[in-house]
């Protein structure tokens, strides 16, 4: 098993990194410093490691890093910065949609994938889109409120 130099594009930055074939995208990202991508169950049940690959939400724990070469990877840290947070990030903070915060990056990325496809989702669509992201602290009500609010913000913004 030989490592290979792999080029990963993460949050619009290019990384050249030597990786073994059995390295998951999750562990490659965390080793590169993207610790905003959380390692939870490591079997695709919890959604803590959700990232967007070419705009599609996937579990980073179930992808091999070699196969992510040449794809656009977006993590929650790439959505916005502390100075200029994404409306979803602002809404999660404002609505108290995080308690321990471990599930939050994945929740936000699943919500981002949903809003990209359905800018005005129904409650049922929100529930379905986040059904692979588990919160073990306190529940989902504030999370859905935050997404609904962010959707409104984004629709106002896009109308200018």
């Amino acid at each position, binding site marked *: 098993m030989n490592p290979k130099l792999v080029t990963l594009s993460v949050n619009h930055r290019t990384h050249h990194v030597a990786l073994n074939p059995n390295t998951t995208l999750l562990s490659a990202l965390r080793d590169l410093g993207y610790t905003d991508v959380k390692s939870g169950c490591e079997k695709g049940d919890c959604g803590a490691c959700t990232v967007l690959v070419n705009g599609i*939400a996937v579990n980073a724990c179930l992808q091999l890093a070699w196969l992510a070469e040449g794809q656009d990877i977006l993590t929650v840290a790439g959505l916005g910065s502390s100075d200029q947070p994404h409306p979803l990030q602002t809404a999660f903070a404002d609505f108290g949609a995080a308690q321990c915060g471990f599930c939050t990056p994945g929740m936000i990325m699943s919500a981002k994938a949903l809003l990209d496809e359905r800018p005005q989702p129904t409650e049922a669509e929100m529930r379905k889109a986040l059904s692979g992201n588990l919160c073990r602290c306190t529940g989902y009500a504030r999370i859905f409120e935050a997404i609904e609010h962010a959707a409104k913000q984004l629709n106002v913004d896009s109308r200018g």
Partner: protein
Amino acid sequence: MREFELLQPKTLPDALDALAQNDAARRPLGGGTDLLVDLRAKRVQPDVLIALQKVNELRGVARVNGHVRVGASTPIAEFLKHPLLTPYRALHQAASVFANPMIRNAGTIGGNIGSASPAGDTLPPLLALDAQIELVSASGTRTLALDDFFLGPRKTARNANELIYAIQLPAKENSSATRSCFYKLGLRQADAISLVSVAVWLAREGEKIRDVRIALGAVAPRPLRAKRAEEILRGQIFSETNLKEAARIAAAECSPIDDLRASAKYRRRMVNVYTRRMLEQAWQNL
């Protein structure tokens, strides 16, 4: 995770060549949603993985000679979107409750079939819709009824040098006189493993059932056609008595196990209940 070599062929011939080398344990890798979990748990220990994601020949959905041909690499999520696939209601329903959105985005139809879990959620609908499977190797392709493909838990008729090429869904099985439907009973609404799943396909002729197929998931060593139950109904009037009898026979035909999710007794009872409900639902919508 165990060490392995990872090959990334770009064409089907290259993938088949890679698979045909029998110097080591080789496994095709589709979306990885089953295989990576198994690798991490050391349930499988291949020396070489052959990633199929770049092989274009395994992609695509098209209408070919009276059926809809679905490339093995087609993600489950595509069954919720593709205009040629959404009319296959039982499959659409199965795709909409398949694991969770991220797994549906990555996991493929070929992978779900190849994994051959007795609880694989697309398998009862595919059996009820009378799907065929195309296998390809360096020496050519062969097509067999999907019902002949499953041999046991995680055991299939695929030879080590073969890849799942595509599945074929008969177009005539989807006319206005037919209807299919699916129900998955899990312990929660999403992200669940089926306790029991039932898929039904039904063709109506007046007040009679012209033809019917019933397929059961998670209640036998492999996804199962309830053929004796079908026999009760085929060519018969759609009646309460016939329905009850067919559901009873379907429950007798399966061989569920006790596990941490449910008892065998409960599963058998639910096969009875949901077989009847699915038959009613299919009929009422015709």
